[in-house]
């Protein structure tokens, strides 16, 4: 009995959806897309996070301090035991690319790392190693090669006969094995590439000197996850934005459904059902809907993430060197949290309606929805909120610091603009209405549009966010691209880049090329912490090559002359910003022997995408203060037509010596490719947001269409053609979208400004010049209009095809 008492009113409430299935579908679509977008971003973030922790494994087996050969790549492995006997706590390592073993789709050879597990893991905590990677597997039979699934697949193609162990926790592109095996595969018998310190540093550094070895401080402190933080914050912000846009749809629909069900709800209250019972039934309804949408959302998010992940993988790999596998894994906990997100979203969007039910009086007269009356008071509230938000914008603008506050600034700007949109539309149409139209239909058109602002405002707000984000992100990405390509052109001036394996070969290369090419420019570098900033000190010849192409942001008027006279150095923008140093300041760092050096800064150059500080020291000075750094890398200037000749000359002269020659165009094309992929995820997400806004628009129009008939019926009755009415409906939607676009454009430019000047600056330490792309805006406007047209098409078609009796009925019902 009791069950029936509850079931009957519940069925009565649910019956609404049977009458208006479209509304139900829209709520489901809104909630599903909101959940899906938010979740897919999280899936991507999780996968990336996993990749970092995998990459962390590699840094686990590389140590803070490393001993390297003074000249060249390899040294004798006997030094390992010699130094151990002198008390050096070291572990040997040999590392190198396996020739022509590439992961499918990758340009790079798989890098094989050979270690001695006994000395490597001596001071490492077991907890840092994922299950698959613990040495028990690694050491089995001492013939094991561990690697990710793709790497192992690539190795198997090479027909290396070893015991391959696939580890899902190992970064792709690297394989780990015992030193004995690595020496054989790399054809480097009795050779090592480094000795890593696993304990304290003994005082006798002369032990190294005597063996032609040198100590190198590794800069592992550049934390991958902190580097990619901004990337993820970016993604998360987009996820959140899409989620909110999706919830706009849900809110609009649920609110409408509530208004339409007011009658039945009141009847239930009159029949004696308490407000609590009715509210509870509505909550159960919302729960059921949100659970269905949540599940659909998880499935959709999986597909979405799977589609976006390859680009993210390339992005992270290209930008930060983090290796991301394309595979996705969904865990039960993820499923549950997704459902939670969906339920939370549905609860938030239905809360206002639910609260209204609680206060619904059974004797309240059944009033028709008088949207226009509400419009004005709503606008007042929105205006007040927008003003409050603007104050916070000013606060963040003036006092904000850090990435989070940069994002908050971005967020408040978007929201306050959103809140101001209806006011803008209201004022715009009011202005138009001041003009006395001769045609009453035109006047009616605008007056009616003004009245519709409130009911369409939710979807128009969603559209505004989507448009502003699209203009903003599109602008940033394009600015970024333009700058980056320009910078590449400036930086990669030399025609060829050569890397020699050791000093002997390097010398031979120099001799070989002298008189054949226009310039041989050595590139040498050391890593050093300069006032706690991870930095690289480069030695370079201040050749005209650099003078003509190096983009200096700030400079001493005689910078190049002074560099040639070894009277100072230039630093990158990042270092200048972090150390708060600029031209004519002195910068201090240490020579390889620990001697304190101080030089004048002659210029600051832009260095996009570099997370580290950089310092360019004239080669003579570099050689004097870092005599132990071998000169192995060269930039070669030569006439373009000679490139193939020189390349083949070098290849034949040094065929077996493993010198690496890279063509400038090659580097450029790889870099551009990486770049294009870098922001494809951002682009895809911003377009998806626009899509969601389209759905929102469709929802609102569809939801309103029932009421519209009753509002339009009188016009039909006085003789306006159905087709004209339908066309007017479409034109109004297009006009409102257009107005929204006009309002969104400056907001979007504001987003560009904030992204480049605040978010980017906080995240990467470099500013980006802003460029404007009117063609992009034009295509966005076109896209918006098409989308608007499509989303209102159904309603217009229905209207034009409505039978006179339907309109008559609507007209009568309304009176």
């Amino acid at each position, binding site marked *: 009995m009791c069950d029936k008492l509850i079931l009957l009113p519940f069925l009565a409430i649910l019956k609404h959806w049977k009458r208006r299935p479209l509304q139900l579908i829209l709520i489901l679509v809104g909630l599903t897309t909101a959940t899906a977008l938010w979740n897919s971003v999280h899936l991507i973030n999780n996968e990336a996070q996993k990749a970092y922790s995998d990459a962390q494994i590699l840094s686990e087996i590389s140590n803070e301090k490393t001993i390297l050969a003074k000249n060249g790549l390899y040294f004798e492995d006997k030094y*390992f035991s010699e130094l151990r*006997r002198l008390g050096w706590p070291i572990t040997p390592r040999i590392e190198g690319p396996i020739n022509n073993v590439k992961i499918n789709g990758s340009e790079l050879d798989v890098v094989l790392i050979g270690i001695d597990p006994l*000395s490597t*893991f001596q001071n*490492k905590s*077991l907890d840092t190693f994922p299950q698959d990677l613990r040495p*028990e597997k690694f050491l089995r039979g*001492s013939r094991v090669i561990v690697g990710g699934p793709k790497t192992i697949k690539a190795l198997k193609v090479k027909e290396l006969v070893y015991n391959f162990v696939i580890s899902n926790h190992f970064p792709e592109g690297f394989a780990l094995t*015992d030193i004995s095996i690595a020496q054989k595969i790399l054809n480097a018998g009795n050779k090592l590439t480094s000795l890593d310190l696993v304990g304290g540093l003994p005082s006798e550094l002369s032990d190294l000197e005597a063996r032609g070895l040198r100590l190198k401080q590794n800069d592992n402190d550049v934390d991958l996850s902190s580097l990619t933080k901004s990337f993820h914050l970016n993604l998360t912000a987009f996820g959140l934005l899409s989620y909110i846009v999706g919830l706009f749809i849900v809110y609009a629909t649920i609110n409408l459904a509530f208004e339409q069900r007011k009658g039945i709800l009141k009847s239930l209250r009159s029949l004696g059902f308490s407000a609590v019972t009715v509210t509870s039934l509505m909550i159960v309804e919302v729960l059921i809907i949100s659970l269905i949408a949540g599940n659909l959302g998880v499935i959709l998010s999986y597909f979405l993430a799977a589609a976006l992940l390859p680009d993210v993988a390339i992005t992270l790999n290209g930008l930060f060197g983090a290796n991301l596998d394309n595979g996705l894994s969904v865990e039960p906990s993820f499923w549950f949290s997704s459902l939670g997100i969906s339920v939370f979203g549905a609860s938030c969007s239905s809360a206002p309606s639910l609260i209204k039910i609680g206060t619904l009086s059974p004797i309240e007269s059944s009033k028709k929805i008088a949207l226009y009356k509400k419009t004005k008071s709503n606008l007042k509230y929105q205006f007040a909120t927008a003003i409050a938000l603007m104050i916070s914008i000013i606060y963040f603008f003036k006092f904000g610091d850090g990435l989070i506050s940069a994002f908050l600034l971005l967020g408040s700007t978007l929201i306050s603009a959103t809140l101001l949109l209806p006011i803008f539309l209201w004022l715009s149409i009011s202005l138009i209405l001041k003009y006395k139209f001769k045609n009453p239909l035109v006047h009616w058109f605008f007056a009616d549009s003004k009245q519709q602002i409130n009911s369409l405002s939710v979807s128009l707000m969603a559209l505004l966010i989507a448009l502003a984000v699209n203009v903003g992100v599109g602008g940033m990405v394009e600015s970024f691209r333009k700058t980056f390509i320009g910078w590449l052109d400036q930086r990669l001036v030399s025609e060829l880049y050569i890397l020699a394996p050791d000093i002997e070969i390097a010398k031979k290369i120099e001799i070989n090329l002298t008189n054949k090419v226009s310039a041989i420019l050595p590139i040498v570098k050391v890593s050093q912490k300069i006032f706690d900033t991870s930095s690289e000190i480069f030695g370079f010849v201040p050749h005209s090559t650099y003078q003509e192409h190096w983009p200096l942001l700030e400079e001493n008027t005689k910078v190049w002359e002074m560099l040639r006279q070894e009277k100072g150095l230039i630093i990158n923008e990042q270092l200048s910003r972090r150390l708060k140093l600029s031209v004519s300041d002195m910068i201090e760092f240490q020579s390889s022997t620990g001697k304190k050096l101080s030089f004048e800064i002659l210029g600051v150059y832009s260095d996009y995408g570099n997370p580290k500080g950089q310092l360019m020291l004239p080669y003579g000075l570099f050689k004097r203060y870092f005599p132990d750094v071998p000169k192995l890398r060269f930039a070669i200037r030569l006439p373009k037509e000679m490139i193939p000749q020189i390349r083949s000359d070098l290849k034949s002269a040094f065929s077996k010596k493993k010198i690496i020659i890279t063509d400038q165009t090659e580097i450029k094309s790889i870099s551009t490719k990486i770049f294009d992929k870098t922001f494809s995820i951002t682009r895809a997400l911003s377009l998806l947001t626009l899509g969601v806004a389209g759905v929102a628009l469709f929802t609102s129009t569809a939801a309103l269409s029932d009421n519209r008939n009753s509002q339009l019926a009188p016009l039909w009755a006085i003789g306006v053609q159905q087709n004209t009415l339908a066309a007017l409906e479409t034109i109004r939607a297009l006009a409102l979208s257009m107005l929204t676009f006009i309002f969104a454009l400056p907001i979007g430019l504001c987003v560009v400004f904030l992204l480049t000047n605040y978010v980017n600056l906080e995240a990467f330490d470099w500013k980006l010049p802003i460029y404007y792309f009117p063609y992009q805006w034009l295509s966005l406007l076109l896209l918006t209009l098409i989308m608007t047209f499509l989303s209102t098409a159904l309603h217009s078609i229905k209207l034009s095809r409505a039978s006179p009796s339907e309109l008559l009925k609507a007209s009568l019902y309304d009176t």
Partner: protein
Amino acid sequence: MILKTSVLFLKIITLFFILSNYGISEDSNKLSSNHSRFSTISKNLSLQFPKDHGSHNQFKIEWWYLTAILEDEYDNPLGLQWTLFRVALEPTFEKRNWDRSEIWMGNAAVTSKELHSFQEKIARGGVSQAGVTTSPFEAWIDDWNLSGDSWNNLTVSATGDNFKYALTLDAKGPLIKHGENGRSVKSASGQASAYYSQPFFQARGWVEQNGKRNKVTGTAWADHEWSSQFMSDTQKGWDWFSLNFKTGEKIMLFRVREKNKAHFYSGTYINADGSHRPIKASEITLTPVEAKSNPSPYTNTWIIKIDSLDIHIRTEALNPLSEMETIYPYWEGPILFTGSHSGKGFLEMTGYYD
């Protein structure tokens, strides 16, 4: 905590290294496995020096063991240990460099009445991180070593986290070959090792523990032993004694514990002049005196009776907490004894954990 984790870690590595190479993951008793490809100790064993001071690669397990009973300037008793183990994982005698499947382990300890400090080192064979040469003699692992022109004069040194020592050792007597010409039988079924000792070292040097350095003097006992199979499958571990009587005589004594039957006993009685004779199993009565409150598996007090030599003594550990918490945990430390004879010695108890 980190130390503990890394110790555990090393145990896992080594165990796995060993097990995986034999494909005997169930048989945890690596000392008693059947290794037909390794050599066994011949019944006609004839030790040749200095050659036999070096390593015997065709055998699976080998160790060089030095224990010293010392006194500091304030007459405080102190024990000291320096050990180098060689474990061949596969009979890859001919293989050199990183290909060689051999692990070396070093154990060093300093034990006073209050404090037992120890350290373990582990190294890979084939690349000279650890090893033994004969002329001159040198046994080493990293920067720990035991070396000298011959076994008459050696120096020993090691450094741990909280201890450090360096001693010079002068032999005042001959090398002692245990069993029959150095073939020391370990079980009724004939498992045997090659085993000789230099129990006559006079030791002098310094020992540092927890940053405090003291000059020390005393005696030291060196053992060198190798085999491919120390124990039969039915044996679990051993209790080994080296005893220095105040009167100058010495005794080496051990029992190998059987799982289900009578334990295997053996020993050597050494006169002050170096003349010696084996002690038969039937002559030995070795009784652990269990203290009821002792939670550890190790016995602190032992009664040793050898009626044929009129010996009836009771030994006590200088520091009962002398466990070597190494990859293979065992107890090793100085003991003091009283009764028919008195003196000092060393006790080793192994195989008490499965």
